[in-house]
């Protein structure tokens, strides 16, 4: 794969991870984790593991995001710390 594109994906990966750890609004953290999973799937596909990338895109970016949104709406939305 083109290494410039891979470098951009790595930068966005680190950014989304830091934002998901530091943000107060938990819904934003869930969306950031979904973005993290999707970029991770892109990197898996770029490294040749198409099956792993497919599973990561379906589970990490699809079903887990929905389940986390359900958890956020069942509890309070803002974090306390």
């Amino acid at each position, binding site marked *: 794969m083109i290494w410039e594109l891979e470098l951009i994906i790595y930068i966005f990966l680190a950014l989304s991870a830091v934002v998901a750890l530091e943000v107060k609004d938990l819904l934003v953290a869930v969306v950031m984790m979904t973005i993290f999973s999707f970029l991770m799937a892109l990197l898996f596909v770029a490294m040749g593991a*198409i*099956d792993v990338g*497919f*599973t990561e895109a*379906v*589970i990490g970016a*699809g*079903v887990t995001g*929905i*389940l986390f*949104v*359900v*958890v956020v*709406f*069942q509890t309070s939305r803002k974090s306390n710390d």
Partner: protein
Amino acid sequence: MRRQFQSPIVLLGARLLSPYIMVFGWYVIIHGHYSPGGGFQGGALLAASVLLIRVAGGRRVARLQIQEFATTPLAVIGVVIYFATGLVAMAMGGYFLDYSALPIPGMEPEWLRYTGILIIEVGIGLAVMAILVMIYDNMVRGEDYA
């Protein structure tokens, strides 16, 4: 869920997107033996299409698609398909999940293996879809449901 309000635009988008995700899920399941993907990924895609309608429309719309009491029998049917295929192959003289021993007449052994993997993957996909939808339903219903 608490703080729920109806949004027709979100519901329209989910209704537009959901059938295509479901068709892609069946494509992944059926082409699972010679391309990336398989029963688990296809079942997760089917579950994603069902959960999209459930998140966007709420319980009243979700009752029209797959009802809440139907998820457990679907999962059981999937597991039974998996183990019945393996045990039938075992009963016909092969090993467990030995697809070439399946009693389907008039088929070459390699086509028999393709068909056996297809049957197994349909079972796995059904089980994964039903279990993921069941997890969502139990989480939405909250702690008063035990």
